[in-house]
């Protein structure tokens, strides 16, 4: 239809469909793009599916590649009643005679389940209803099944080759993988270590960054621009240039000395024990560029008149920070605490360097590597530990996702 004719068509006749189209087209576009995004998301997150299903498997479920992806095992129907069930079966034996027998189902006996195409005998079993049935007897040419859900139907005969049938599967989750990892890797100890490192670091970072950000946001200091430039510059400074001396000093001059001094002390022995954690915690008490920047940006949005009023009332700058600035900056402070907690919880490099030989103090981030190093064939244990390692960060992330998303934007790009 040309444009001209469509213009000439009386409005009253097509008006309805035009209005309908105007409503449906955006809806259709939205549905399409949403569906597309959903598919991309599914592909993007599919490794999680692999992890979740594998973590619940046993070794047998891993090694059999023919099994479905879910953690399943061949289903078995177990007879549970006290009184045995009796079924009559009859078949033609090798000599050509018709034989009748009785089959008794006893309590506690298991019968394998198969996906039986009732009515079809040779593959492909097309057009037949497939039922999950329990095999109770096998004779020369006939297989006898019952339906555990409908035992009153009696015996169902199927004369095909049993090897052509697929077994029925049922979900078979191996929760014990998690208990095993929990014990073998000593999760309580790893969690304790991680919490010590993370919480100390959060305290240090939060306190020091608040002070420094306050200094940068509220005071006229000669050379402040250069100092600020240097602070930001440390973001792109590779940590490798400072790593080796920092490691050397901590190891030789601090940790070893502390351990030598307090090793045999009854009251101060804990200093020797926890000394290796110092390089992972102490530096955080000296502020870092990202968090100072985030806090400073937030402090700048708080009106200066308020702290000036406090100063006029005789409050010291420190007092002003605590009672005027901080109460208004709680969202930013929370963001800094959360960021650092997550960072410390996931930090791999620090513990790898400083706690290499110190099993006793290793946090989750490096401690969960045991299975990969020792038994690489135990995929299910590796995935179980991977899952256990990510549960807490993911939960925290979902609870505080708004803080994460906004905080990232504040530090990165201001709009």
């Amino acid at each position, binding site marked *: 239809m040309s444009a001209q004719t469509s213009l000439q068509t009386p409005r009253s006749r097509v008006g309805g469909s035009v209005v309908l189209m105007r409503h449906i087209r955006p809806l259709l576009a939205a549905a399409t793009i949403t569906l597309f995004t959903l598919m991309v998301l599914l592909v*993007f997150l599919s490794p999680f599916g*692999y992890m979740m299903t594998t973590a619940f498997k046993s070794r047998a479920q891993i090694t059999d590649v023919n099994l479905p992806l879910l953690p399943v095992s061949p289903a078995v129907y177990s007879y549970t009643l006290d009184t045995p069930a009796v079924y009559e079966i009859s078949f033609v034996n090798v000599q050509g005679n018709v034989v009748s027998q009785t089959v008794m189902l006893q309590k506690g006996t298991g019968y394998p389940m198969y996906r039986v195409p009732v009515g079809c005998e040779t593959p492909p079993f097309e057009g037949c209803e497939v039922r999950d049935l329990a095999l109770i007897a096998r004779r020369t040419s006939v297989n006898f099944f019952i339906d555990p859900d409908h035992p009153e139907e009696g015996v169902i005969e199927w004369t095909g080759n049993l090897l052509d049938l697929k077994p029925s599967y049922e979900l078979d989750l191996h929760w014990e993988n998690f208990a095993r990892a929990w014990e073998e890797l000593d999760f309580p100890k790893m969690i304790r270590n991680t919490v010590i490192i993370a919480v100390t670091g959060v305290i240090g970072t939060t306190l020091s960054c608040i002070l420094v950000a306050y200094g940068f946001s509220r005071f006229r200091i000669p050379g402040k621009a250069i100092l600020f430039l240097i602070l930001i510059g440390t973001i792109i400074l590779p940590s490798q240039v400072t790593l080796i001396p920092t490691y050397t000093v901590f190891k030789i001059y601090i940790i070893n000395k502390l351990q030598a001094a307090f090793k045999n002390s009854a009251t101060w022995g804990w200093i020797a024990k926890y000394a290796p954690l110092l390089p992972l915690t102490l530096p955080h008490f000296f502020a870092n560029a990202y968090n100072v920047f985030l806090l400073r940006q937030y402090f700048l949005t708080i009106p200066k008149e308020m702290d000036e009023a406090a100063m006029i009332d005789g409050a010291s700058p420190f007092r002003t920070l605590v009672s005027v600035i901080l109460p208004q900056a709680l969202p930013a402070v929370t963001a800094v605490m959360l960021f650092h907690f997550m960072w410390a919880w*996931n930090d791999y*490099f620090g513990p790898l360097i400083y706690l290499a030989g110190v099993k006793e103090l290793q946090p989750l981030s490096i401690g969960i590597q045991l299975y990969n190093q020792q038994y690489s064939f135990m995929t299910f244990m590796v995935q179980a530990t991977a899952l256990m390692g*990510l549960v807490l960060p993911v939960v925290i992330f979902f609870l505080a996702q708004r803080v994460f998303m906004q905080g990232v934007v504040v530090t990165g790009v201001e709009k």
Partner: protein
Amino acid sequence: MDFVNALRSVRREEKAGGLSGLARREALWGLAFLSPWLLGFLLFTIFPMLASLYFSFTNFDITRPETTRFIGLENYKRFFTDPVMRRSLWITVRFMLISVPVGLAQPLLMAAMLNAKSLWGKRIFRTLFFMPSIIPVVSTAYIWQGFMNTETGWLNRFLMNVLRIAKPPQWFNDPTWVYPALIIMGLWGVGNALIYTLAGMQGVPTEYYEAARVDGANALHTFFRITLPMISPVIFYNLVLMVIGLFQYFILAWIVGGSTSAPGGATQFYNVYLYKTAFVYSNMGYGSTLAWALFFMGLTATLILFGTAKYWVYYAAED
């Protein structure tokens, strides 16, 4: 860019006043508040940097500190003739050449998708796409290593059973395929770059899009002529961070390759070699040389990027 604007405002403020008695008091208070960082900067940045520069002229071995002596330019001579270093640097640079385009395109494409006007459930999608970047790196590595396992992994089962590829890649067991495998694994780290890019896209004034629509531009035109130039500062920021990060590529290579840099030394990236030199072979002297060389290479790359910025990065209304 945020950092740039912040710096400008600090400098402006500084020009404003001289130093009277009151101003000196204020400056002292200010310095007192800055002191944790100033002290930390001296202790954990300046001092270690100088020390590592000094180490690079010695044969310092942390297991035998008493044998340490000054060996002049020995380490630097070794650096320029070291075939192992050259190989690890080549591995790093080659990896960068495929990694950077992927790392630039991925957040752009994803952000464009998530920024589509008619998309339902934007916040949920955004959260779920971001989520993988907050999980511990060991978990990430394990999940992908399992997912791309040659026999039992979902990826190869998909390639074999659905796409009918008879011999799918051996991924982490193949010295060639291990690089694409590492890049695929790295896709999960898009989180921050994605959020910056999205924020950048949302900040583009809508009038521009309306004007383009009036002029009859299609979606592709709009994306390349308006969105891309407008968010080029974000792209630049992502690019700089990515290049600096790639020079220091270590953790995934280390988890995947271990101390032997399996398969066949293919995961011995520059930083892995540095780590081994210093912390496995305890050669802190040569390790420091490698660290300083890394610093200079990263700095040079950053300066080059900043030099190109004026040709393609667009800063709107610099007020």
